């Protein structure tokens, strides 16, 4: 069946260091893979996405890498800041007409001052 999962439940990094959050997926048919950030008490917030025909996409301080060969997705955050502390979810956009999101189980990022 469809599933999107994460390798590490918690990641602790020093402020200023780079963070890498990983995700594995099993459904290769999706057109988009998306990273969301969720702060305590809030809904998921879009960070960056990547289309399935790309292998890298960069945003402001964030980069998403897609390796379709091993069905692996990663989020790199440069110069991690205290405000980056949150739970990060990868999600896969379903290919059916409803465009539902299939979420992974989340990684908590803790930034040490």
């Amino acid at each position, binding site marked *: 069946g469809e599933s999107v999962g994460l390798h590490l439940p918690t990641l602790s990094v020093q402020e200023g260091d780079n963070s890498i959050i990983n995700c594995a997926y099993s459904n290769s048919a999706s*057109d*988009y893979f*998306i990273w969301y950030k969720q702060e305590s*008490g*809030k*809904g*998921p*917030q*879009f960070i960056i*996405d990547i289309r399935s025909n790309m292998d890298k996409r960069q945003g402001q301080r964030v980069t998403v890498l897609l390796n379709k060969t091993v069905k692996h997705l990663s989020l790199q955050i440069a110069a991690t800041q205290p405000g980056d502390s949150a739970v990060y*979810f990868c*999600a896969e*956009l379903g290919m*059916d*007409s*409803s*465009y*539902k*999101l*299939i*979420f*992974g*189980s*989340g990684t908590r990022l803790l930034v040490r001052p």
Partner: protein
Amino acid sequence: EPEVTQTPSHQVTQMGQEVILRCVPISNHLYFYWYRQILGQKVEFLVSFYNNEISEKSEIFDDQFSVERPDGSNFTLKIRSTKLEDSAMYFCASREPGQGRGYTFGSGTRLTVV
């Protein structure tokens, strides 16, 4: 920046009672969703709604659940007879037409069934 608004932010209800969770999606969005997140777990799809009807629902969305768009702005999720296991955060989301990934989520309603 346009927002998806959800009310209430927290609702406590007794088991067996009916609850209605309310959402105001972004005005020019045409696709609406409910997701749920049990504490400490991943966000799960419940239902999608387009053109005044359900377009897809998950196994979680059984006969106890229903959705409605009673007017041009509100989108509601009703749980007819709540169970303890319905306790979760419920997120409403809406999506731009023609933009598969243009989701915006609300801040959620925390439902506690006691």
